[in-house]
Structure formats: C-alpha cells, structure tokens
C-alpha cells in the first residue's frame, strides 16, 4: 500500500518535470528557460527523496545535497551571464 502511494508521488513529480520541460522548449525568453531548468532540478531532489524511501536505503541521500548545490551554482552562473554577458569578470589593469 505504502509503496503504491510512493509511486503515485513519483508520478506527480514526473508530471511536473514534463510541465517544466514544456516551458524549457516553448519559453519565449532566456530567463524563462533557466527558471524551468532550476525547477527541474528541485523536482529531481524530491524524486530522489521519494526513491530512497521506496528502495529503503540511505545511500542516495548525498545525491540530494549534490543536486541542490549543482543546480544553485549553474543557475547563478546563467543569471550572471544573462545580466552582464560574462560569468567571471576580469580585474581591471591600468
């Protein structure tokens, strides 16, 4: 019973990832696409949590933290690139 319930939760997460994928493909501007990709990362975190309950293991809990950090760094890099055109600014040398 509880396992079928976890499968229902994973189904909802898959539907929301599909919706975000629609926004990635269609989105009219670049910040839309980056935001939808960040949403996919957040949904993947919840999916890994559901899957590690379903498999009854502790081994995947590192992956949650890892996906969170990677998604954060990637989105920040894209936001800087959209706003200023470069990700890492050089020092000015006189």
């Amino acid at each position, binding site marked *: *019973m509880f396992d079928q*319930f976890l499968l229902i939760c994973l189904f909802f997460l898959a*539907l929301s990832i599909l919706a975000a994928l629609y926004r990635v493909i269609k989105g009219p501007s670049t*910040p839309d696409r980056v935001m939808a990709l960040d*949403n996919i990362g957040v949904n993947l*975190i919840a999916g890994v949590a559901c899957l590690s*309950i379903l498999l009854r293991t502790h081994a995947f809990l590192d992956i949650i933290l890892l996906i969170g*950090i990677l998604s*954060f760094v990637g989105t920040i890099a894209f936001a800087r690139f959209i706003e200023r055109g470069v990700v890492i600014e050089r020092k000015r040398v006189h």
Partner: protein
Amino acid sequence: MNENVYINIIVAIFLLFGTILSFLSAIGLIRLPDVYSRSHAVSKSASLGVLCTLFGAFLFFLLTDGYFSIRLILGIFFVFLTSPVVSHLLNRAAYHSKVELTKETVQDDLKEFLEGE
C-alpha cells in the same frame, strides 16, 4: 506493526502534500502570463513542496530505522536558503535584459527609478 502503520500515514501525508504542491507550481509555470509571475509561482510553492518531501523522508528514516540523517537536514537548509536567492537573481537579470512585463501591468516603479538616474 501498528506503530509502523501510523508512521507510514504521517510520512505519506507529508509526501503527498509536497508532491501536489510541486505539481501546482508546475501548472503555474505553464499557465501564468509573464516571467515575473511564473517565477513567483515556481520559487515559493516548489521550494515549500520539496521542503515537505525532504522532511517526510527525514521522518521516515528517523522513525523506522532510527537513522538521524544530517545530510537531509543540510539539504532542507540549503534548499530553503538558496531558492529565493536564485529567484531574485533571475528576476533581476530578466528585468535588466528588458523582458516584457505582461499587458495587465498597472504600474512599474523600477522603470521610473532607473530613468530618473
């Protein structure tokens, strides 16, 4: 056995709340008109949904195995901390790269402020 059923019900409520909240934020991501309102839907409800899901997983491992997972606590803390920052930076980048607001917009104070400089 009886306790185990209660634990499963509590964890199931948290997981269902979190996943349905993520699903609602995905519906908002499809249906809302412009970047800023979509970001409003995505950042708040998706982060609350993933927080509820991770807390359900934390309760499950704590109550069934007696395993106190510090990594899940760190994950909850990290998502709670970084999701608004990401939303703020993306909105700021969208505004500075002149993405259009929706047609129903009444007032744009930031534009007047930037032109006044």
